[in-house]
């Protein structure tokens, strides 16, 4: 079974790597965004799927990375690759600053704090106009780099999924899960929950920052509302949930399925699409909170690293 999966993985990667040679512009941008959502959903999974601490403002790292990279590219002439990487670092720094105090909060309060954090970042970014262009946003110099961004996003998605695999199949991952299962017992058994939560949180903030930077380069223009929307957080959460949070491939599966549906089926009718999306959220929450892989795992005793 494992060999088959491994083979599928290798073949799939090769196909994806070769794809830009045969794809249309639309096809490349489609896949590029798909990679982005996979990366986002998986990053959310690292903190919330594993430790159970629901980060309800995770898009804050995305937006911070986007603005950091955009400023570096537009104002200081950096190349988008190191700029995006720095965006990731910015995300981690933000996580470090708020992580320690916020992670001490219990369930609902942590969620609300993260929500508030996102709004704080959005408003701060609007305020420091000199740096960020305020409500007018930042325009990046024109550059057609879709193919390179395609590979960069793909790399980000692979990196975070590989991280998820390494964590989930290790005792570090098990210890993170004990925090989700029973934090008090975990602490009593010698797990330094404060430190572990922080590590997971920092890890989960890096890729959204990088991907935010790549997104900024890809779009060519960002503004506060476009990179700090609550809808983005919700989307990445629903994707991770749909596929199965706490698993390695769940977020990948969920992101792929939902994004494909979104683009192919609903993007034509904006309001209808949103209503349907709302319905999907309700459906997932009420009827399949464990997600596809979560259910399969329980039923067939599959490995979590699946």
């Amino acid at each position, binding site marked *: 079974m494992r060999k088959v999966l491994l083979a599928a993985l290798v073949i799939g990667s090769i196909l994806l790597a070769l794809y830009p040679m045969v794809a249309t512009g639309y096809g490349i941008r489609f896949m590029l965004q798909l990679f982005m959502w996979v990366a986002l959903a998986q990053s959310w999974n690292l903190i*919330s799927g594993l430790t*159970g601490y*629901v980060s*309800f403002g995770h898009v804050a790292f995305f937006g911070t990375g986007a603005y950091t990279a955009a400023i570096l590219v537009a104002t200081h002439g950096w190349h988008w690759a190191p700029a995006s990487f720095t965006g990731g670092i910015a995300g981690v720094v933000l996580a470090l600053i*708020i992580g320690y*105090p*916020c992670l001490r*909060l*219990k*369930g*609902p*309060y942590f*969620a*609300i*704090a993260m*929500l*508030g*954090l996102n*709004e*704080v970042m959005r*408003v*701060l970014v*609007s*305020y420091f106009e000199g740096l960020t262009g305020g409500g007018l946003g930042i325009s990046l110099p024109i550059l057609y780099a879709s193919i390179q961004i395609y590979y960069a996003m793909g790399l980000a998605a692979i990196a975070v999924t590989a991280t998820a695999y390494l964590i989930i199949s290790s005792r570090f991952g098990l210890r993170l899960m004990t925090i989700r299962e029973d934090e008090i017992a975990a602490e009593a058994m010698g797990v330094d929950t404060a430190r572990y939560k922080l590590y997971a949180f920092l890890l989960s903030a890096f890729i959204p920052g990088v991907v935010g930077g790549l997104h900024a380069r890809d779009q060519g223009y960002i503004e506060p509302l476009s990179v700090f929307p*609550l*809808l983005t957080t*919700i989307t990445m*959460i*629903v994707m991770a*949930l749909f596929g199965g949070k706490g698993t390695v491939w769940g977020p990948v599966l969920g992101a792929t399925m939902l994004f494909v549906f979104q683009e192919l089926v609903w993007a034509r009718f904006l*309001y*209808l699409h*949103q*209503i349907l*999306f*709302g*319905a*999907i*959220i*309700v459906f*997932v*929450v*009420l009827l399949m*909170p464990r997600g596809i892989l979560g259910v399969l795992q329980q039923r067939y005793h599959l490995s979590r690293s699946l």
Partner: protein
Amino acid sequence: MSIFITPAMVGQVVISGLLAGALYSMVALGLALIFGVMRVINIAHGTILMLGAYTTFWWFQLLGINPYLSLLASMPLMFLLGLLLQYTMVTRVVDAPELSSLLLTFGISIALVNLAQLAFTSDLRSVEFLTGAFVLGPIALSKSRLISFAVAVAITLLAFWFLQKTKLGKAIRATSQNSEVAMVCGINVPRIRLYTFGIASALAGAGGSLVAVIFAIQPEMGQVYTFKSFLVIILGGAGNYPGALLGGMLLGLVEQLSSLFLTTQLSEAVAYVLLVLVLLLRPTGLLGGRAR
């Protein structure tokens, strides 16, 4: 930003703050009830407020009668909507991990907001009814805000009377303290939850009606009220109903005061920064609620 801040300006700002605060308190009380009784974080609260606002708009548009009377329509309508939502969906995420209720109510919110956009378009609407202000010396009190203050206070007092003196109200409070014990005491907890969501939605709807006479109406107007209600109950302490009152007043004051000293943009941030600060420093609220 002015250099000289006169007492009159401060007085104006304080009064404006209190006027706005009463509205926040009333709306936040609804959110507090839902969280207190069911541990549900209702992101759709502001959306219901928005629907209340549209009810008032159409009332005034189609009937031409005093929009304040539309409260007689918006409150019952939102009450029924609340019952429906609770009965069909919210009841399943009660006592579930908070992620479930967050996502569920967000899903409901998105669906409702977009339905509103389909039905009403996102054109800005307004209810032109009361314009102008009462002038008391150096202080000008906008008529519509004054009336909204009075109505909000009346409704909130009514709500508190209800919670303290009626059987249903006491049952609600008992359930929010300990639902298992309440059940053992013979309280029909599922039905209490139903009524709670209904009442909370009615409060939100009332808020929407009052806001409709003051501000412009559009489908996405609710989100900011949801956030502010969160802030109010965190300030006052979750599960602490009188705390929601003070929290609302505090928020109103802080908002208006900060608009005196800061730009409008930053004063918007003040609410959120306050939220995060209070959560980090005193998660049980300034008045201390339950540390859950």
